[in-house]
C-alpha cells in the first residue's frame, strides 16, 4: 500500500475538479452572490454532517449536541477575528475553537458516553442547551442574546471548500484505520469489541471529540462568512437539521452525508418560490425517503473511486471479451 495509488489520485482529481467547476460557475456568474450563500451553506453542512456521522454512524453513539459544539467554534473564532481581523487571526480562531470544543467534548463525553441510546441523546441535547444558555448569559464576552455582529468576512468560499475537503479526509482517514475499525466494532457489538481488547470508552470518546472538533470548524467558518452570529442560530433545531442530513444520506456513509447535504441544499433553493408550502414539501421528501429507503440514500455503503475503477475495469473487460 502506497500513499500515491489510483485511489488517492482519483480522490484528488474529484476534489480539484469539484473546485474548478465551482470556480468556473462563480466567475461566469452561474452562481450569483445569492446562490453563493447556498453553496457555502451546503459546504458547511457537509462539514457538520460528516462530523456527526462519525459519532452516530461509526461509533454508534446517538448525539444531539452538535449545535452546541458548533456554537463554541463560531463564538471563539468570531471573538478572536474581531480582535485580529487577518487570516492569521482566523486560523488562530479556528484552532482555538477546535481546542476549546475538544476540551468541552472530553469533559462532557467521559460521563455521558456511559449512557446508551435515548439517554445519551437527551444528555447531549442538554449539554448543547447549557452551552447556548452560557453564551446568552456571558453578556460581556458574547454580547448575549443580541449576538455578535461585524465579524470580519474572511472565509471566502474557496477557503471553506478547502476545509470541507480536509474534514472529509480527516474523518475518512480515521474510519479506515485501525482505531477507526475499533470504533466501528463498538457500534457492531460492544461486548464483543471489549472482549477483543478494544478500550470502548477511549474510542467512543475519540470519535466524539473528533466529531465535535469538526463541528467547531464548521461553526467558525459560518461565523466568518456570515459576519453575524446569534445564540438563536445554535438551537436544538440546528442539531436536528444536521441529523436529518446524516439520516437522509445514510448512517455510516461519509459520501452519503455529502450527497444528502447537496441534495437538501438544492431542494431548499428550488422550494424558495413556494413560500409556506416549502416546509411541507421538504418534510414530505424526508418521509418519502424514510419509507422507500429507510437506511438512507446510500445506506452504509460508500461511493468510492476504487469502486468506480473496478466498475470501469469490469465494463472494459466485458467490452474486450
Amino acid at each position, binding site marked *: 500500500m502506497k500513499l500515491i495509488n489510483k485511489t488517492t489520485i482519483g480522490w484528488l482529481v474529484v476534489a480539484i475538479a469539484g473546485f474548478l467547476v465551482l470556480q468556473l460557475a462563480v466567475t461566469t456568474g452561474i452562481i450569483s452572490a445569492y446562490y453563493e450563500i447556498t453553496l457555502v451553506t451546503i459546504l458547511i453542512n457537509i462539514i457538520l454532517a460528516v462530523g456527526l456521522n462519525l459519532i452516530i454512524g461509526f461509533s454508534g453513539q446517538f448525539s444531539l449536541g452538535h449545535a452546541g459544539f458548533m456554537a463554541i467554534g463560531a463564538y471563539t473564532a468570531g471573538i478572536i477575528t474581531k480582535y485580529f481581523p487577518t487570516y492569521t487571526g482566523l486560523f488562530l480562531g479556528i484552532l482555538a475553537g477546535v481546542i476549546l470544543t475538544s476540551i468541552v467534548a472530553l469533559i462532557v463525553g467521559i460521563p455521558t458516553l456511559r449512557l446508551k441510546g435515548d439517554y445519551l441523546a437527551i444528555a447531549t441535547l442538554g449539554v448543547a442547551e447549557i452551552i447556548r444558555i452560557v453564551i446568552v448569559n456571558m453578556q460581556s464576552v458574547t454580547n448575549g442574546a443580541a449576538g455578535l455582529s461585524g465579524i470580519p468576512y474572511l472565509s471566502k468560499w474557496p477557503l471553506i471548500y478547502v476545509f470541507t475537503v480536509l474534514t472529509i479526509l480527516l474523518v475518512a482517514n480515521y474510519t479506515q*484505520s*485501525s482505531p477507526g475499525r475499533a470504533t466501528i466494532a463498538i457500534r457492531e457489538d460492544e461486548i464483543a469489541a471489549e472482549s477483543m*481488547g478494544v478500550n470502548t470508552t477511549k474510542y467512543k470518546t475519540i470519535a466524539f471529540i473528533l466529531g465535535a472538533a469538526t463541528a467547531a470548524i464548521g461553526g467558525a467558518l459560518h461565523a466568518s462568512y456570515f459576519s453575524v452570529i446569534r445564540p438563536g442560530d445554535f438551537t436544538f433545531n440546528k442539531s436536528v437539521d444536521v441529523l436529518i442530513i446524516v439520516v437522509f444520506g445514510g448512517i455510516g456513509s461519509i459520501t452519503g452525508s455529502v450527497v444528502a447535504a447537496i441534495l437538501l441544499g438544492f431542494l431548499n433553493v428550488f422550494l424558495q418560490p413556494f413560500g409556506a408550502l416549502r416546509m411541507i414539501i421538504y418534510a414530505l421528501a424526508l418521509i418519502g425517503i424514510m419509507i422507500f429507503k429507510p437506511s438512507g440514500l446510500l445506506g452504509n455503503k460508500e461511493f468510492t473511486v476504487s469502486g468506480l475503477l473496478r466498475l470501469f475495469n469490469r465494463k472494459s473487460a466485458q467490452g474486450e471479451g
Partner: protein
Amino acid sequence: MSLLEVKKLTKNFGGLSAISNVHLELKENELVGLIGPNGAGKTTLFNLLTGVYQPTEGSIEIETNGQRESVIGKKTYTITDMGFGRTFQNIRLFKNLTVLDNVLIAMHSKSKVGTLKSVLRLPSYYASESKMKKEAIELLKIFSLENKVDELAKNLPYGEQRRLEIVRALATKPKVLFLDEPAAGMNPQETADLTALIRQIQKDFKITILLIEHDMSLVMNVCERIYVLEYGRMIAHGTPEEIKGNKQVIKAYLGGE
C-alpha cells in the same frame, strides 16, 4: 507453574448463587474441559474470568511476566490485553464487517497504532497496516478461511462463523483461550474436524485452552483434565477416565441415586 488460579469464587445474582466457592487452576499449555448440565454456571464462570461480571467473593489471579496479579476490578479489554481471549456461546461476530476486518479489530490493541498516526497517514501507518493484514491472512489460512477475507461475517455458513470466532480470539494473541461451546450446532463430521483443529491450535500456538462443551465425545477426546459444574458448585475434577466413572457426575447428568 499455574497461569490462572481461581479460589473460592462466588457470584450471587440477588438470592441466586450462580457460582459458589469454585476453585480452578490452569497450567501452561494445557487443554482443560469445563462441563456441566444446562444452567450449571459455565458461561457465568467465563464471564467472571473475563471481567464481564464482577465476583461477589473470591479471587482470580493470573501470572503475567512472572508476577501474580488479581483480575478482579479490571475491565474486560485489560484482561484481554493480559492474554485472555474468548469466544461466545451465541456467536458475537461483527456481522456487518468483513472477515478480514473482524480479525484486524482483534489485533488492534496489540498493534499500538495511534489515532494521530492514522489520521495523518504517516509512513509508519502504512507499514503497520500491511503487516497486520499479512498476519491476519496467515491466521485465516490456518482455518481455511483465506478465500473469504472480503466476505461479510454474517454471510458465512454457521460452521465458518464458529471458526472465525476462534480466529478472532487467537488474533488477540492470548496465552489462555476460553472457548464457549465451539461445537454447538455442528454435525458429527464438523465436530470431528473441530476436535482436530483445537488440538492443533493448542500445539501450534502453545496456549492453554479452557473449553466449555456439551459434546462429550469432543471433551473426552481432547481434554487432559475436566472440571464438572453443577448448580454453581464444582462437583468433580480429574482426568477424563476419572470423570467417566465419577458417581456424582453420572448422577448430575442422568439423575438417580
